[in-house]
């Protein structure tokens, strides 16, 4: 009898943990590096929400497309975008995922099915309908996942897209990463309907709400909605109730949060800790194996930062290239 009570093999459990740990360390490190002033522009960190990206993306392959958000680093990492290229992009270097032309908010890798982080809230929803439409025409079994937050859930694009996906029965999943805050504004204030499942129901879509800090809850629910979409069962909505450890963007003093909220969340609702405790206490994975992943990820992030800092800047001629395929 195996020691593993989970629906994932030991290797898969470790892969899930590695994904979440990589996202966490990537973001924690950006938090530090940003404060030093080395990173241009602004960054929106995903720390706290790792179980959502990891739990969903484990069901996808490169033929499946995702449309991400301004808070996209976690989605990129979980979808397989190279961490070195991501870090270099955030530093605006020519070795970046977008050769320094996109930055934190526009990291994309279409070969991995990552259709881009997006600086426009709610813009990914129509795009992913197109991805779903393309998959449907090709008959390749691909699915599209669009992520948006409780804030962008109020964009007309998201609502229009739910309707379009429903009438065309597209293989598309609408994932609400509900971290409770639209920038600084609470979901209770800004969203008239009180449950995203109700909102999905308004478009005839089945909706599910899961605890977004529980990797296994996200993984299982995502598995069902994705399988269903892949088999032609149509679109669905998945709400992950989650938390963000940092502010809307780096530099946000977060005075809109309750006193002690971040500390409480880090102590009690840290999806990485919850995951590690569960798999180690069940004996499916040893603490030594978890620590090894921690060390390897720490080394990866160190190397990524170091190589990004040392990477060449884009040459001036890059200003004028890549506007058109041909002009």
């Amino acid at each position, binding site marked *: 009898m195996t020691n593993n009570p989970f629906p994932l093999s030991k290797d898969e459990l470790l892969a899930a943990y590695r994904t979440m740990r990589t996202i966490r360390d990537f973001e924690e490190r950006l938090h530090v590096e940003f404060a030093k002033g080395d990173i241009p522009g602004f960054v929106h960190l995903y720390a706290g929400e790792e179980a959502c990206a990891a739990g969903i993306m484990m069901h996808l392959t490169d033929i499946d*497309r995702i*449309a991400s958000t301004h808070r996209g680093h976690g989605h990129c990492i979980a979808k397989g975008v190279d961490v070195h290229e991501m870090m270099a992009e955030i530093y605006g270097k020519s070795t*970046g*995922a*977008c*050769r*320094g*032309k*996109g930055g934190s908010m*526009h990291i*994309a*890798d*279409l*070969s991995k099915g990552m*259709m*881009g982080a*997006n*600086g*426009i809230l709610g*813009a990914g*929803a*129509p*795009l*992913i*309908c*197109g*991805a779903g*439409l*393309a*998959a449907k*025409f*090709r008959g390749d079994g691909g699915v*599209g996942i669009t992520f948006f937050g409780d804030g962008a859930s109020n964009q*007309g*694009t998201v609502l*229009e*897209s739910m*309707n*379009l996906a429903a*009438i*065309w029965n597209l293989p598309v999943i609408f994932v609400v990463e509900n971290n409770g805050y639209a920038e600084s504004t609470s979901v209770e204030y800004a969203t008239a309907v009180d449950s995203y499942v109700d909102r999905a129901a308004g478009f005839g879509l089945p909706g599910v709400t899961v605890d977004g800090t529980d990797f296994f809850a996200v993984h299982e629910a995502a598995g069902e909605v994705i399988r269903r979409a892949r088999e032609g069962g149509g679109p669905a909505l998945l709400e992950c109730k989650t938390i963000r450890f940092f502010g809307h963007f780096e530099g946000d003093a977060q005075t809109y949060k309750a006193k002690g909220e971040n500390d409480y969340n880090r102590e009690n609702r840290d999806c990485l800790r919850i995951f590690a405790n569960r798999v180690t206490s069940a004996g499916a994975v040893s603490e030594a194996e978890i620590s090894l992943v921690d060390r390897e990820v720490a080394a990866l992030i160190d190397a990524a930062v170091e190589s990004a800092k040392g990477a060449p800047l884009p040459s001036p001629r890059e200003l004028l*290239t*890549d*506007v*058109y*395929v*041909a*002009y």
Partner: protein
Amino acid sequence: MARKISYKQAINEALDLEMRRDPTVIVLGEDIVGGAGAPGELDAWGGVLGVTKGLHAKHGNRLMDTPLSESAYIGAAIGAAACGMRPVAELMFLDFMGVCFDQILNQAAKFKYMFGGKAKTPVVIRAMVGAGFRAAAQHSQMLTPLFTHVPGLKVVCPSNAYDAKGLLIQSIRDDDPVIFCEHKALYGSEADVPEESYAIPFGEANIVREGKDVTIVSYGLTVHRALDAAEKLAKTGVQAEVIDLRTLSPIDWDTVIESVENTGRLVVVDEANPRCSIAGDVAAHVAQNAFGALKAAPQMVTAPHTPVPFSPVLEDLYIPSADAIAAAVTKTTARALAA
């Protein structure tokens, strides 16, 4: 074999030929089949003015009626293009860009650059432009300058049936996002159009009338007004050269500059409003690059800085007329005569 067909038929034919050639071409838009889910006939409309009529019978579900939900379906067309399809989305009236511009401005136009060259977005957005249909302020605008302003977009506006077919075929084959502007007042205009498939390259203006005294640059419906003006001017001994830009982005600066270097005079005719218009753009470019050749100040003939009015008497005043163009030409030649 060429035969006379209308601008509208030429567009239909281009779509048909490209859909036959390339299975990744799909066509979607409001009422482009018409009657989807309704109790009556399918293909009831074939587009609000019948441009896509009959295509559904040939290509089935590769033509899709959409809900009245421009952000969603224009965005879906863009997303599908980024995933390997070649969608042709009909926006019906270009004025409706107001409800889906983000997907065009911030998504389609930016993907290639923003993603470091790794994306291509071969989407065509077809839409009706222009006044003359008594369709008032929200269904009549010539918004070409807004799109031409945006790096990453290509903007096409054919003036005749032959160009409409060749330019639409090129638009569909092109790997960049193309805004294909169809002047609704030209739908019925006929020209000799070959039956076979052909593509007209972008960025090649068409000299539709040769002349040595003045260069008149235009595109779309007002090319015909410019030709009317040239005809009148010929009777007064002024030989006007008329250039149809055909595509506004990219634009064929060489042909314009070469012509102005020969004639020394420039009149730009644009159905758009005057500020930051195609007319202003062409005049500025010529002033900057061919100042020495100019014998007179360039003239712009445009719509006034107003919305498009409804009442026919006002709308007729709105669109640049052959008389106004001729008058502008006379301004450029008057100084030369006096000199």
